[in-house]
C-alpha cells in the first residue's frame, strides 16, 4: 500500500531470515550474534510499521524492544560466559551494519515526523537501540569471561 510498509517488509524479511539462519546453524558464537541481530533488525522494522500504519502509538513496541533486546543478549552473555570464553564471538561488521540501519531509519522517520514530542520519542528509541546494541555486542565479544571490557 505505501512505501513505509514495503520498506518494513523488506527489512524484516531480510534481517530476520538472516538471523534465523544464523541462530539455527553454526557454532555457539555465531548463534548469540545472530540473536542480537534479530532484536537490532526488528526494532527499525517496527518503527517503519508504525509509520506505515500511521499509528504513532506503535512506536511503544519498538521502544520496549530497544530496551529489552540488549537485556536478553546480556542474559546470554552472562549465563553462557563459560562456553563463549573458549570461542569468543566476533561481531564488529554485523553490529555496525545494524547500528547504521537503525540510525538511517530513525533519521528518516524524524525527517518525516517534524519537530515535536513524537520526534523526541523516536530519537530516544534510536539512542536506546544503538547504544544497547553496542553495549550488548561488546559484552558478547569482549567481556564474555567477566574479565572486563575488551
Amino acid at each position, binding site marked *: *500500500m505505501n512505501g513505509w510498509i514495503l520498506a518494513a517488509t523488506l527489512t524484516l524479511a531480510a534481517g530476520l531470515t538472516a538471523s*534465523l539462519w544464523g*541462530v539455527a546453524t553454526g557454532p555457539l558464537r555465531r*548463534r548469540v550474534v545472530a540473536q542480537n541481530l534479530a532484536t537490532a533488525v526488528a526494532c527499525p522494522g517496527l518503527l517503519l510499521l508504525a509509520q506505515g500504519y500511521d499509528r504513532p502509538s506503535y512506536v*511503544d*513496541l519498538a521502544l520496549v*524492544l530497544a530496551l529489552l533486546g540488549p537485556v536478553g543478549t546480556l542474559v546470554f552473555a552472562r549465563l553462557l560466559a563459560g562456553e563463549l570464553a573458549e570461542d569468543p564471538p566476533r561481531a564488529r561488521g554485523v553490529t555496525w551494519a545494524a547500528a547504521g540501519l537503525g540510525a538511517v531509519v530513525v533519521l528518516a522517520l524524524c525527517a518525516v515526523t517534524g519537530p515535536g514530542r513524537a520526534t523526541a520519542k523516536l530519537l530516544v528509541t534510536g539512542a536506546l537501540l544503538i547504544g544497547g546494541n553496542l553495549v550488548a555486542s561488546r559484552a558478547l565479544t569482549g567481556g564474555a569471561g567477566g574479565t572486563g571490557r575488551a
Partner: protein
Amino acid sequence: MDDAVIAVALVLVAACATVAVATRDPARQALVLSVLGVVLAVLFTVLQAPDVGLSQLAVGSALTPLLLLLTVRKVRRRGQREESGR
C-alpha cells in the same frame, strides 16, 4: 501490500518455531526461542494487536531465555555434584 507483510511474518514464525522444535541442546534452543519471541511480536503487530505484541516482547525476548538458562545451569550443576559424590 498489507497481506505481504502478514505472509512474511507468518512464514518467519513457522520457520522459527520449527527450528526451535528441531534444536536439541537447551542452551541453543533458548537462543532460538528468544528470536521466536521477537518474530511473534512482529506478527501480532502486523495483525493490529500491538498490546499482545507488547506483552509477548516483554516475556519472550528476555524472561523466557533467562528462566530456561537458569534451569539448565542448575540441572547441570546438580548432575556434576552427584557424579563427583559417587
